[in-house]
């Protein structure tokens, strides 16, 4: 195995740490955003459950609400 690919002429530590830092920040942002989105969708669905049948019917006519409610069921 050609170790020079990883050592990079002695600069491997700099190159790999820069790439790792970039991807770590991206991963953290992605996971944080995803977690908060899933929580919001779950809370929204729970609040909809508390509504009367008439209110739910009115709500499901709106595209956004329908979209949120169906996406939550896919998550579960």
């Amino acid at each position: 195995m050609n170790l020079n690919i990883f050592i990079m002429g002695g600069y491997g530590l700099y190159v790999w740490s820069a790439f790792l830092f970039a991807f770590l920040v991206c991963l953290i942002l992605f996971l944080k955003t995803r977690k908060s989105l899933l929580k919001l969708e779950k809370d929204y669905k729970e609040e909809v459950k508390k509504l009367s049948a008439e209110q739910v019917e009115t709500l499901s006519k709106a595209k956004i609400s329908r979209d949120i409610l169906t996406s939550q069921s896919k998550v579960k």
Partner: protein
Amino acid sequence: MLSPGKLFVFLNKISKSIKVILIPLLIVSLIFSLFISPLDYIQGDTVRIMYVHVPSSWIALACFSFIGFFTILNFLFKYKNAFVIYKSLAPIGFSFCLISIVTGSIWGQPTWGTFWAWDARLTSMLILLFFYILFIFSYKYIQDLNTSSKICSIISVLGLINLIIIKYSVDIWSTLHQPSSVNVFGKTSIHNSMLLPLSLMLLVFLVYCALIFLMKYRSEIIRMKRKGLKRL
């Protein structure tokens, strides 16, 4: 202009395609930037840091330009979608500004012999990071929408002035940081063998930004809809 509702449904459809292309594109870009692209005749392998540093800086600057535009739009015309858009863009811009500063600092050690210098470009990028922090804190912790909108507008106008300083800092002052090698309207001094991985990494970051933006936008709309539920 599109209403948040129509935009919400449309953006949700494209987010599925984005998820499919992101990983293969990332793998190809990493192979090009870490293994295939040539060494620099002076900097050697450290030049590979450019493939994360440069696109991150471009995205950090572009995000703040959009934030400035939408904040002013919201302040002047009360365009309701603008508030949702700039709130979704700010964390993305902040993350890429942080990546740009840290990777630049890592690149600085083998190239300049120091992690940090109070050079015009580096300092103005650090100021941009503080503008991002101030901006995020303003819309997060100021409850009154009007006050928050006014403060956000002031921060974004000052930030826009800083963007001009960042752009011309390497031309006006004598800096450690090199002048730009890629120019959209002028001559690009970078070889195609390096321009290709740079463009690929930029594309990966842009696709990633689009994905995060869509998730953030969706979260903001759900937050608004939850408030609407209480009025039913």
